């Protein structure tokens, strides 16, 4: 009797052999184990890859956050610088009206027109920028002479006491 060999590697093994064909491979053992192992590897790999990617993204996000923290801190320093310069200019010029801008290599600040508040001399509104970070300060000055007396020094989301320019 002549027999034809049936390939073992295929996924679709006929359940019954036609005449002239002989089952040369074990029906399930080695083949199924390899297949399951491969699938397991793939599944575990996908999970591992997803986990790793998440961690990678988390690491990236943390780095991004750290840069944002740095820029935010720098933006606040620029806003403070604007207030510092504004207070000095106001003390050396009786007609000082604000509306100044200053810049540094890594950012800038803008001092809006001096605003007014009840029972206060002036309100200084300063906006510092560094990268994408923006910080705003509203500083209410009770007196300028002989000492500068600060009534309030607040970080704000939007300016409310200085005229828009």
């Amino acid at each position, binding site marked *: 009797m*002549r*027999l*034809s*060999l049936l390939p*073992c590697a295929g996924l679709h093994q006929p359940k019954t052999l036609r005449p002239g064909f*002989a*089952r*040369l*491979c*074990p029906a399930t*053992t*080695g*083949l199924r184990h*390899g*297949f399951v*192992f*491969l699938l397991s*590897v793939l599944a*575990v*790999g996908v999970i*591992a*890859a997803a986990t*790793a990617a998440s*961690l*990678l*993204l*988390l*690491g990236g996000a*943390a*780095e*991004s*956050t*750290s*840069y944002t923290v*740095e820029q935010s*801190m720098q933006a606040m*320093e*620029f806003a403070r*610088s604007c207030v*510092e*310069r504004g207070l*000095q200019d106001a*003390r*050396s*010029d*009786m*007609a000082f*009206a604000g*509306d100044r801008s200053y810049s540094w290599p*890594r950012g800038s600040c803008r001092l809006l027109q*001096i*605003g*007014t508040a*009840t029972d206060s001399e002036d309100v200084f509104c300063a906006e510092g920028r560094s990268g994408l970070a923006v910080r705003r300060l509203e500083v209410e000055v009770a007196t*300028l*002479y*002989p*000492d*500068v007396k600060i009534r309030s020094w607040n970080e704000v989301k939007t300016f409310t006491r200085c005229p828009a*320019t």
Partner: protein
Amino acid sequence: MAFPHFHHRSRPIPHRCGGGFLLVEVMMGVALFAIFLLAAGLVLMNGQEGTETAGDRVRATFLAERSLEAVRDLRSVSFSSLGDGQHGVQLGVLGKWEFSGNETDALEGYRTNVTISTPGTGVKRVVAQTKWKHGVARSGSLLLTTDLTDWRSTCDVGNWASLTEEWRYVPVAGSSFNDIAVVEDRAYVVSGAVPALHILNLSTYATATYDIGGLTATAVAAKGKRLYVLTSDAAAELRVLNIENLSSPIPLNPPVSVDIAGTPTSLAIRGNELYVGLTNSNETLQPEILSFDISDSGALVPLKVGHLAPLLGFDVKGIAVRGTGAYLALYSGTMELGISDTTHATLNPNSIHNLTAWGGDEKALSVATSGTGLLIGCEKNTATSQSPEWYIEIVNGGISTPLSHLGSGSITGVSLDPQGQYAFLAAASGRKALQVVSIANFSAAGELAFFNATPPAIGRDVLYDPVRDRAYLVTSTHVVVLRPGGVPTRPCD
């Protein structure tokens, strides 16, 4: 090709036929798994490293910020201690910040230094740099920059018990000066003669004049780089000049002016509002006080008006604005002080006061505020030959019992020092054109010093300059810069 013959056997021989395939599969699987594992490991390490690097940077940011705060603290003690160069900062034995070496070592490999430079007069630029190195891969540095100024220092006020004339401006052509405003180191004095504007450089004492179209002027006020002048032009009394170039005023382009019905007498600025006082007592329908929005430096936007019409006979001779109050010097023998609430829809006075300490018929000519103080100068009473001025404390919107003092001649201009020690009075009299009075105790200390105008002239206005600790006396013919006698003090400039 013919297949070899096989003998049928009861059991298959898997090892011979499938073994190779399974091995390849296993090897592929293991290889794939190894690749995944390697990739995952690398990514894990990378992610971990990113997180650690982020932590390094955040920590370094706070260390740099702490150094800037330390320098800020040192500035508060002494601005002059901020010497240019690279410094380290550390807490001293007394728990106060101090400079130490040129770098500060923090724990765990962080090093911070601050570099101080002077980018402009009175400004210190502080750059804090923090470096870190943790192994081969985790190293870096960052910078934080800030500017500091000397705004925390105190501007001294000298002892005005005696006066010294520092400089005098007497123009060649006769002038009739009326009012003065100061911007930076320039004084702008308006005159009732042509040219109407005189510019005095208070640093070099160079002078210049500006002819406002052949007009004369009665009052001037300044805000930023804009000069507001009341001129003799009946069709455009209030004019705005551009003083971007402090020495060369020019009209705005396009010109900005306002035709004010009536006779404007005085100007005052509070924030972004300009107030104009008028003598319209004979015009029942015309306001005695106006305000304009000057937040747009190229426009005068009318805001509010105030009427004294029900009390005919009241003219506004002077305005001073503080907080939400506009204080009006009323030219009336019975009511000298009017107070308008600037937050109301109109500037109609909320209260009017009769300051009759001297039994009188005195009429207010001038008013000034500083801190919580309000000073009102009056016309000389021809019946009693007395010229009182009143000093009032403004407390929670109300006024205290007035303190009064008798000056010499009609008090045409008043000014206060911000510390509340001295009142400066310009009197319309040849003798004692300027008088300095102790505010702290009008009745006891009274007049501290005076200045006789030479050449003879009458006082028109006075302005105390807290930046320089100087008083500018404006007389009918000249301007005098006065400083306190004795040891020179350290003013703000």
